[in-house]
């Protein structure tokens, strides 16, 4: 037992090392970083964080990212719920082909689509808005949400639906007041995944924005190249991008394993 628990402990230690280094670096002064190696910050400073929280180009990056991620999560879950229900309960013409086609969109390399996306969203006239990024991320988040929700719905016996209809529930009322509460764990997990994949994606988000809706990740890239070697600032910005994910994951902690298995265990 003792020997066995060593494996996860070592693994988590390995996972934490680069994260520790990023956090430690964010509390160091630029001088200290460039002057040589130090395991802990020698002169502890919050200068980098102060810059981020007072400079609008920095903190607006975070607000922009959170905005488009939230819009995307709401859109994805709303449209995926009825679709997942259809896939889990009914057979219809072309259902299998449609399901596979949805999944293929998770396979398309984002690099392939960057330029056409830019042209499409410029033509529609919503380039550089939060909505543009939110809609673009639907490409891979909706199929994922459908996939996860369908897995969770498959675990709900069909008798639930039939009993409700016998009891005189209309479909919309059954769906909203009985069915969705039954699979709320699945909805939470699907929302978590939409949040996660929209939060971590950069290529499309960067391509579809210029100033008004620029994501934090893009602000970081610009700083990395223009400000030369402000590693402390870069590390602080990076550290702050880990925080939202850590908060969201706390809410689904009991469903993570099942969620990653797309509800299929």
């Amino acid at each position, binding site marked *: 037992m003792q020997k066995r628990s060593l494996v*996860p402990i070592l*693994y*988590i230690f390995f*996972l934490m090392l*680069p*994260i*520790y*280094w*990023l956090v430690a*670096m964010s509390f160091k002064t630029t001088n200290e970083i460039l002057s*040589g*190696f130090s*395991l802990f910050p020698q002169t502890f400073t919050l200068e980098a964080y102060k810059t981020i929280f007072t400079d609008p180009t920095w903190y607006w990056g975070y607000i922009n990212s959170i905005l488009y991620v939230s819009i995307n999560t709401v*859109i994805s879950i709303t*449209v*995926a719920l*009825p*679709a997942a*229900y*259809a896939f889990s*309960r*009914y057979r*219809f013409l072309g259902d*299998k082909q*449609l399901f*596979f086609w*949805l*999944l293929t*969109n998770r*396979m*398309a*390399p984002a*690099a*392939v*689509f*960057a330029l*056409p996306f830019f042209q*499409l969203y410029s033509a529609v006239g919503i380039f550089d808005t939060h909505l543009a990024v939110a*809609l673009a991320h*639907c*490409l891979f988040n909706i199929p994922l949400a459908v996939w996860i929700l369908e897995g969770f719905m498959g675990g709900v016996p069909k008798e639930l639906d039939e009993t409700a209809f016998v009891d005189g529930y209309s479909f919309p009322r059954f769906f909203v007041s009985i069915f969705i509460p039954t699979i709320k764990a699945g909805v939470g997990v699907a929302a978590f995944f939409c949040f*996660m994949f929209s*939060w*971590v*994606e*950069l*290529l499309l988000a960067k391509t579809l924005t210029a100033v008004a809706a620029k994501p934090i990740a893009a602000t*970081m*890239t610009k700083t*990395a190249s223009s400000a030369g070697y402000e590693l402390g600032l*870069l590390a602080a910005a*990076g550290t702050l*991008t*880990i925080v939202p994910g850590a908060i969201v994951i706390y809410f689904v902690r009991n469903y*993570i*394993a099942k969620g*990653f*298995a797309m509800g*299929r*265990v």
Partner: protein
Amino acid sequence: MKTENQKAWFFVLPVLLLVAFNALIPMMTVVNYSVQETFGDNLFFWEGLGWFEQILRSDRFHAALGRQFMFTALILIIEVPLGIAIALSMPRKGFWVPVCLVLMALPMLIPWNVVGAMWNIFALPDIGLLGYFLNHVLGINYDMTQDPVAAWVTIITMDVWHWTSLVVLLAYAGLVSIPDAYYQAAKIDGASNWSVFRFIQLPKMKNVLTIAILLRFMDSFNIYTEPFVLTGGGPGNSTTLLSIDLVKIALGQFDLGPAAAMSLIYFAITLLVSWLFYTLMTKDDLN
């Protein structure tokens, strides 16, 4: 089991429209570019299948494709067994389970460019923790900006760090679904650890492992941001994976025709391999 109902199409219609808008229109744009030649100024000339032929015969594409397959193969060979081993040694219940799971999932929630930047800082030869440790404590000459082998080791380690948890979480989900009675029965029969793994745990994990391999294949085959931020494809072209090369051609040289043709070939390869996995997966669902 399922009832036939053509009206179910109305339920999937919003999904269909939204995804089609994002998938079909850009895809048609790519197809359009792939058969034309442009000299700028929005002037296009019919090129036919010339670009496809050129790409399929080009050494540069073969080299990038080779590197891509090597990267994906190494990733799968390392991450899948490692993930299973870690999942097997995790506690099944108790206070530490959610703690472990949350900590393990953390790397996956970090934006991809931050992952690259983080590993860059981590691997700096003289001031990064990893670089300092290798160079000054172990005395290994390590500099990933100069040495292709070091660059490869770094991007593989980064990906193992980033995504092994996905395999762990999936395998773990399969493991906790095994009822205790199975283990008790195995104990009574005097089964060895290996046969418990081979005949109880592995079959139960088969479905989730297929998902894990499928996701790891798709994502590692399409990987762009992390290695680009970490190594920029260098030193030389040694870590220029397929996506990185594609972006170089499309946005760097603005060769839209060849880039579009390459995109379609790239997509077709991903699709083909993924389809193989998918058929395996759905075959299991039916049984």
